[in-house]
């Protein structure tokens, strides 16, 4: 009889999947006391009170059952109306929308629904941590396109064209972007759309930060001419309504694709928790004013943060969306992991190394401004002291040489 070895039972595909780069740094920060963290990828606002109250009421009224696999009809209707009003893209609540457990589940469902073994999934880099692992778990081959600071971390049509092969099938977009804060304008997206059409790509557009756009209006990729059927539009309640822990997101798209996604969802998840769906419904019905209030606050913090980063010599392009700044730390002579570790040790400030989000994040750090002004200022003061020390050394060294 052979000995039981649990690890042997884990499939190779998972063994070769690297653990989240952010995890390692998390453990480091969690074990340090007195840290000011600007490493958090979620709003510092607690979910607005009326939404929390609606959730409690729903429990009192006995909303404790399964819902439709697709999500509650009222909520789907609300989502469809919202997308139509805000982004001018029209879906049927009957068969074109699915309510998911956060936008993250929608990303996974979308990739699993459309990726065949060996299909190439094109992903601009740096990017949110789950796209590449989800694409790989679905059997796809990840093709990264490095976006660059000099292009404000936007994807260019030329870069996309250059990445195309006969196996290209899916393009994943996320604008406003986590971790860079980049946005793409309608004109820029139109150029991407032309390439997608030319090579018959399916586009998964994760627009979870759509409400947090600080320059002009957000353009949904699905709203571009001819793109609606080609796009799986993903959004959710986490960032805009400060509802991360509730886990409510959604996907909208062609009935054939959404139908396929519902199949996976109904056999694995069954439905998004009804309590969270009730809260999401309240958010859509009565929460927009709070969204705009929070956006105003983020925008003020954003200006403060970017201004001070540039003043201390950490070159930072203007992030026009989400709640992150992504400055270059190259001038300190440190790589981004070193920078983050030393900053944590010396000044007790946590920010996230850019490469946690992909190769081309190297030399950058992600700083979240989803924190109070006091916290941001305290962190910036400490960071400034840290950076100055490095620059002074650099000047001394070059003077000696």
């Amino acid at each position, binding site marked *: 009889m052979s000995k039981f070895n649990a690890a042997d039972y884990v499939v190779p595909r998972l063994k070769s999947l690297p653990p*989240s780069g*952010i995890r390692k740094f998390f453990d480091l920060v969690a074990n340090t006391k007195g840290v000011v963290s600007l*490493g*958090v990828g979620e709003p510092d606002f607690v979910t607005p009170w009326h939404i929390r109250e609606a959730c409690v009421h729903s429990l009192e009224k006995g909303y404790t059952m399964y819902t439709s696999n697709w999500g509650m009809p009222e909520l789907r209707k609300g989502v469809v109306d919202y997308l139509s009003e805000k982004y001018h893209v029209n879906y049927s609540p009957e068969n074109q929308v699915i309510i998911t457990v956060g936008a993250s589940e929608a990303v996974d469902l979308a990739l699993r629904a459309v990726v065949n073994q060996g299909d190439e999934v094109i992903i601009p880099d740096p990017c949110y941590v789950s796209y590449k692992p989800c694409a790989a778990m679905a059997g796809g081959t990840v093709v990264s396109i490095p976006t660059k600071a000099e292009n404000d971390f936007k994807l260019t049509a030329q870069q996309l064209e250059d990445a195309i092969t006969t196996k290209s099938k899916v393009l994943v977009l996320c604008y406003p972007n*986590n971790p860079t804060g980049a946005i793409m304008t309608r004109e820029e997206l139109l150029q991407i759309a032309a390439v997608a059409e030319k090579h018959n790509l399916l586009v998964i557009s994760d627009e979870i930060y759509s409400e947090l756009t600080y320059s002009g209006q957000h353009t949904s990729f699905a709203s571009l001419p001819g793109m609606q059927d080609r796009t799986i539009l993903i959004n959710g309640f986490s960032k805009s309504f400060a509802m991360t822990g509730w886990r409510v997101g959604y996907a909208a798209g062609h009935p054939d694709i959404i139908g396929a996604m519902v199949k996976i969802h109904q056999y694995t998840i069954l439905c998004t928790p009804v309590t969270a769906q009730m809260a999401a419904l309240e958010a859509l019905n009565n929460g927009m004013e709070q969204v705009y209030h929070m956006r105003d606050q983020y925008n003020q913090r954003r200006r403060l943060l970017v201004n001070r980063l540039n003043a201390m010599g950490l070159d930072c392009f203007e992030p026009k969306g989400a709640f992150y700044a992504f400055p270059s730390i190259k001038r300190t002579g440190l790589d981004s992991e070193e920078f983050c570790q030393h900053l944590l040790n010396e000044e007790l400030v946590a920010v*996230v190394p850019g490469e946690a989000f992909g190769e081309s994040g190297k030399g950058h750090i992600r700083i979240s401004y989803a924190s109070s002004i006091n916290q941001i200022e305290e962190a910036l003061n400490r960071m400034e002291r840290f950076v100055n020390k490095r620059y002074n050394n650099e000047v001394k060294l070059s003077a000696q040489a």
Partner: protein
Amino acid sequence: MREKILEMLSCNSRISHEQIAVMLNMNPEDVAREIKAMEDEKIILKYSTLINWEKTKSHTVTALIDVKVTPQRGVGFDEVAERIFRYPEVRSVALMSGSYDLSVKIEGKTMKEVALFVAEKLATVEHVQSTMTHFVLKQYKQAGVVFDDKEEDRRQVITP
């Protein structure tokens, strides 16, 4: 833009002109000029601090007094209000709709002091018909700020 500046000052009266300018994407000179203008126009009256006195050694007693006034020809609410708000013990006076006319907030060192003030000064003001005194026992929230907020940052220290 004035509303935005006022909003920021009402949250933090110590914020610098430079920081307001950065956060609202304005010139510091323009911010300084607007603030000066609003001071001159008495839109901005004073820069104050929100204090939880309960946590200090100085204990004051606060009372809200509902005051009914008998309006008479030639003497409006404004005149009666002025006779009341001239007393330094009176912290605020407002004209109300509903079952009484003036809401008066009084601070004193002891309940007795406040009660005596009401009995001897306030109730005897001409045209004051009646008073009803409510002592404040505990302040939970003021000016939008919860005094002893148990709601803390419960987020993980690093999240993607």
